[in-house]
């Protein structure tokens, strides 16, 4: 296992002001994730996992603490620098896909390259990214002409197109039926095998159990940070709400065929 860290968070705190009271969304969290890892962050709503996602994704800045992303200190960067970091170092996958509906799948994938001011043949690069997620044939379609699974694949292609060192997925299967969700998770496994570092934020234990390592959060703290072995997986599934639906996937996680 490579020991090169991609995320190094030390004593990170995030406070929100809600009217007169202050909410401690993250309370002194430290965390290290290495290159090539597939990590889940899980917890009930209000546990701080969304805040964690926003901070890891450089969508927000911590109130205190330090954050090194791929060796670069990012906790105190200005908006401009943060946008640049998001563009180059992080690929986002969202629950609701968040594609720009008025443009084609291809244009959606091109978008991060546009903001990166990348020259060269961006169309060809976008096509390659779509091929990687098995959607080359749908490049010209608008998001509303695609199924949920296809949309999420477009979003993954978009997340990968700038070759970021980190793929950050926020409930990527939350809006998909179980079979499509499995396919997306299978794609994650494939990408992981190809060397992509994946951080998956989810409240579903069964989904979280797909990762190599699960970080469970509660009340702004890390409750548990553990490698997933067979025993732990069973435990997670037992506590998961949709465990039964995912059982059979787990028995053969890498070889689910696409159903024509």
């Amino acid at each position, binding site marked *: 296992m490579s020991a090169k860290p991609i995320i190094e968070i030390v004593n990170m705190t995030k406070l929100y002001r809600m009217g007169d009271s202050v909410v401690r969304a993250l309370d002194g969290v430290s965390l290290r994730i290495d290159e090539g890892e597939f990590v889940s962050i899980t917890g009930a709503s209000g546990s701080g996992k969304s805040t964690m996602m926003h901070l890891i994704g450089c*969508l927000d800045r911590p109130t205190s603490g330090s954050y090194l992303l791929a060796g670069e200190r990012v906790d105190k960067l200005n*908006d401009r620098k943060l946008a640049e970091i*998001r563009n180059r170092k992080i690929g*986002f996958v969202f629950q609701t896909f*968040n594609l720009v509906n*008025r443009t084609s799948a291809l*244009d959606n994938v091109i978008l991060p390259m546009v*903001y990166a001011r990348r020259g060269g043949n*961006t169309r060809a690069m976008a096509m390659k990214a779509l091929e990687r997620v098995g959607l080359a044939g749908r490049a010209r379609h608008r998001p509303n002409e695609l199924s949920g699974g296809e949309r999420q694949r477009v979003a993954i292609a*978009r997340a990968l197109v700038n070759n970021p060192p980190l793929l950050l997925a926020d409930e990527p299967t939350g809006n998909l039926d179980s079979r499509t969700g499995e396919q997306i998770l299978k794609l994650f496994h494939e990408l992981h095998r190809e060397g992509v570092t994946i951080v998956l934020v989810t409240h579903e234990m069964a989904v979280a159990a797909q990762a190599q390592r699960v970080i469970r959060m509660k009340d702004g703290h890390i409750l548990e940070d553990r490698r997933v072995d067979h025993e732990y997986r069973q435990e997670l599934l037992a506590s998961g709400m949709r465990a039964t639906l995912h059982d059979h996937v787990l028995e053969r996680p890498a070889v689910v065929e696409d159903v024509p």
Partner: protein
Amino acid sequence: MFFIQIILMSLRGLRANLLRSLLAVLGVIIGVGAVISAMSILEGTERDLRERFESLGSETLMVTPAVARQAGRAGGLIQTLTVEDAEALLDPKRCPHVKAAAPEVSGMVLAKNLSRNTEVTVLGTNEAYAEMFNYRVAEGQGRFLTRDDVASEQKVAVLGHEVAQKLFGNVPPVGRDVRLKGIPFRVIGVMEQKGYIGFRSVDMQVCIPITTAMNRLFGIKRITGINVRADGAANVGLATAEIKRELRRRHDIRLREGAQDDFNVMSQEEMQRQFSDVTKIMGFVLYSIAGISLVVGGIGIMNIMLVSVTERTREIGVRMAVGAQRWDILKQFLIEAGVISLVGGGLGVVIGFGMTDLLTTTTENLVRTHTSGAVIAYALGMAILTGVVSGLYPAFKASRLDPVEALRYE
């Protein structure tokens, strides 16, 4: 590529909400239409005036009766000018810089040839008039008035181009009779087509000796003005002074004793200046109206842009997540506002052309218009500027969104 993508995207957005977009740009359409019409009218009028003044020639002076002033109020005209005044101006000792003088009286009269008749302006003048304004007799169509015609009070007439057409058609009029107020006049010449001299449309004019006009046709003793030509444009000032001195002497006006001139002398340049004041005021009024329409148009654009920003909050969040700078978002919405208003502006140009055309036709060319490329470019430029200025606040608002909040927006 970014630029073109944004333009294409905003056009798609416009088409997706066609009715809403149309209503939003209605203000810009009307505004640009108003700008185009206003500028066309103004430019047409200015051209018209310039041509008219140029037709007078820069060496021309006009002597007209003064407006009577009683206790500061304007009254009627002081009609004291006579044919003899006009002749006196030709005295080389008293007025060395006056080259020619043509006195005039005029009135609307019914002209008749057999069963055809038409309303014409009869201009009583002398032999100097035609040459003074470079107004020529049509090729092979007789001659203009002579000194003898004026001296012997001949009942002869020189027809304007259109008068000849209307009364005689294809028949050569020279040698035939035309009846003015029932009195027969022998046609001695037909003038070439000219348009106008100053503010007089000479093609619908009939020139007769001033003596005949005063004594036989109108029965008046005073003339309505004297057209004077100075001997060179540089000497207009000198000629003006000479004319004033001579007329004061003749009319026994003593300024030192508090008397006032009973006449005005105005050069072509002065007349032009007076009218340019009028066109300036006209321009100000027209531009104000056009400007107000554009402001209203801008409000429409701002409104649709604010709606658009709210509707697309999540999209803005996504763009920020994948790396858009605040400046990229600002730029996108500004370009969109610009594109929307440019589309409105394009429609406005069409409307403007229509309005201008309608105005010219309904007033039968009385209002002259001229729509130049510069006018269109200016109007479109104003439209884009309006759009961008109106889009500034919504675009700023979009660019200041918090990415986390924007992504959460339902």
